């Protein structure tokens, strides 16, 4: 199968559909040490939360980062905004290496990279008014907009669909969706070029999710802000992102433009993820899509499986998967910019699988059809 490999990973991001690169992440790694032992504590292991992530975000582009809980999506986001110190790898923002930049060195970049947090309740200081929360980015970075900071805050409140009169209110007087809008306004206060949105809608009601996603999309289009949109909701990412990266256990297993990932995925894990998305076939004419039911949980990131990390749950795994780690490359039959890390990739289609894959033996016995290929 190695004849599938055509391009080395490093050349992958140089894609014709991708605009000028704004953020480039290479081999980003974050290991959280585990200490143990008595009486002197020493490092006994590490949680390999993020282990060699390659990612690029173009100017004004919105990239989705999806994966199961605990696969390192949020950690990746926090490494990029430098809330955490990376263990290894390189983060380049607009040509500037910010991997280990100090707070002073980061100062000019800080205003260009902003973050939206998942939990709208914990991300706003309950002791500050909405006005001072949104004003804070300008104060910290010493920015004095024309017409004063207060005027700018009122404009931002209006932009995110809140009443500017609410300037002096406290966060607890707002609903979850409104609070997330405040978070968006804070992120927009410095007119950033890149926003890392860490599951910005997953804590919200479904009806509110759409409002906030639409708000983010408007912001993205009107202000030309690049987004790294971290989410586990594939439908939301599909709606929002031009390019999508799929993460599994600290690694990017597949990356490509939206159409490639959603309609022509190659990695078995992407297939499994997509098959879990509920689908409404209104006219009843669409072909029944494959169903893949994985068994078990994501393996522990303390001692991840050797070789391909997905092999313990993959129905196509062979000996090679355990011994050799598949590189993230363009496979033959894939489009430009569509990279997959798999030795035995699936066909680039979602239709036409003869039988469902059911990995769980109990479930298989229950359904009594003997389906699945182990």
């Amino acid at each position, binding site marked *: 199968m190695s004849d599938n490999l055509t391009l080395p990973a490093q050349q992958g991001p140089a894609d014709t559909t991708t605009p000028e690169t704004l953020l480039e992440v290479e081999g980003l790694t974050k290991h959280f040490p585990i200490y143990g032992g008595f009486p002197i504590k020493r490092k006994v292991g590490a949680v390999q939360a993020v282990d060699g992530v390659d990612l690029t975000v173009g100017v004004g582009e919105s990239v989705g980062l999806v994966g199961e809980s605990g696969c390192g999506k949020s950690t990746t986001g*926090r490494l990029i*905004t*430098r*809330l955490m110190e990376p263990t290894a790898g390189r983060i380049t923002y607009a040509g500037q290496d910010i991997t280990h930049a100090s*707070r002073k060195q*980061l*100062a000019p970049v*800080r*205003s260009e*990279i*902003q*973050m939206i*947090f*998942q*939990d709208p309740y*914990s*991300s*706003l*200081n*309950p*002791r*500050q*008014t909405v006005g001072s*929360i949104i004003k*804070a*980015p300008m104060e*910290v*970075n010493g920015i004095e907009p024309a017409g004063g900071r207060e005027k700018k805050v009122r404009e931002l409140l209006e932009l995110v669909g809140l009443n500017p*009169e*609410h*300037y*002096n*209110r*406290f966060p*607890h*007087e707002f609903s979850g969706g409104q609070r997330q809008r405040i*978070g968006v306004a*804070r992120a927009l206060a*410095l007119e950033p070029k890149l926003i890392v949105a860490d599951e910005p809608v997953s804590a919200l009601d479904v009806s509110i999710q759409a409002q906030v996603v639409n708000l983010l999309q408007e912001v993205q289009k009107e202000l030309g802000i690049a987004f790294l949109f971290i989410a586990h909701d594939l439908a939301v990412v599909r709606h929002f992102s031009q390019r999508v990266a799929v993460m599994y256990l600290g690694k990017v297993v597949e990356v490509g433009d939206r159409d490639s990932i959603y309609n022509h995925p190659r990695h078995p894990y992407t297939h499994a993820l997509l098959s879990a998305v509920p689908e409404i076939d209104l006219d009843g004419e669409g072909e029944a899509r494959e169903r893949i039911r994985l068994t078990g949980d994501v393996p522990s990131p303390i001692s991840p499986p050797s070789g391909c990390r997905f092999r313990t749950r993959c129905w196509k795994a062979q000996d090679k998967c355990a011994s050799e780690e598949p590189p993230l490359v363009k496979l033959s039959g894939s489009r430009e910019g569509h990279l997959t890390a798999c030795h035995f990739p699936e066909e680039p289609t979602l239709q036409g699988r003869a039988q469902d894959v059911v990995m769980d033996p109990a479930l298989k016995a229950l359904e009594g059809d003997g389906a699945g290929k182990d």
Partner: protein
Amino acid sequence: MPEQPNDQEGAIAGTGAGGAMDLGASEAETLEKTPYGPEGTGPAGKPRSLWSDAWRDLRRNPVFIISGLIILFLVFISLWPSAITWESPLQCDLAKAQEGSQPGHPFGFDGQGCDVYTRTVYGARTSVAVGVLATLGVGLFGSALGGLAGFFGGGWDSLLSRLTDIFFAIPVVLGGLVLLSVVTSNTIWPVIGFMVLLGWPQISRIARGSVITAKQNDYVHAASALGAGHSRILLRHIAPNAVAPVIVVATIALGTYIALEATLSYLGVGLKPPRVSWGIDISAASPYVRNAPHALLWPSGALAVTVLAFIMLGDAVRDALDPKLR
């Protein structure tokens, strides 16, 4: 929200009704002074912060009102004891030793022939001064150390945690007997210093835990993602959200410091005569308690009421600041 404006209307209407509602007027005034009060200009009235919510709760709490009035009275007599007394606490007449209540001397005389009423009133100054200053010292020192250790973590944090363990192991009364018996200065400062020395670990632990909880909030991450420095994060984001438990424990501890001062003075290592303190008076009156119980009961009663008032205040403040109890 609907309760707040009504509340204020009530208070303002109260003032308008006439001078009889003095309490209402002062309440409305204090409400304006709550941290976030004056900023509220929105159409829906004043914003509600945790502090203004707490204040609203407190004003309706009879425990707070009673303890607050007792404490106000105590503070008043410690600042101006001569306002309600007419003698000097050191003006004693042995001929009247152990005599009971008589006109001009409602509490009688103690073993040295000093007026018990005057001495009890003047003793409040020592108690309140020791309590307030020791609490301030412990609060500032303990929360600074604990807060910084909690915020920065690492080796200094571990060191501080072990150090607090060591200080917790020192028995308070025994430590006081040993340490204060070598001090010759007869002022309140060695006593306060001793209380700060033994009291800071309690506050430090609470401040540390509270800061660690606060620093994990996303708004702290958000602030550092904006490039905010340590001092801004600590002062603007962590301190306001971590200070409530420290205030509660410090208020309750204030009562125990007053009791500790009396204990140390009783044991002869705190303040010594001719200083005036409830502890000294209790100690002096105890040998002849069967002949002149009033000399013991009045300062003891004053001490008990004072300690109780501060502990009740601490309880009320805790109830008001704890959102889980609301």
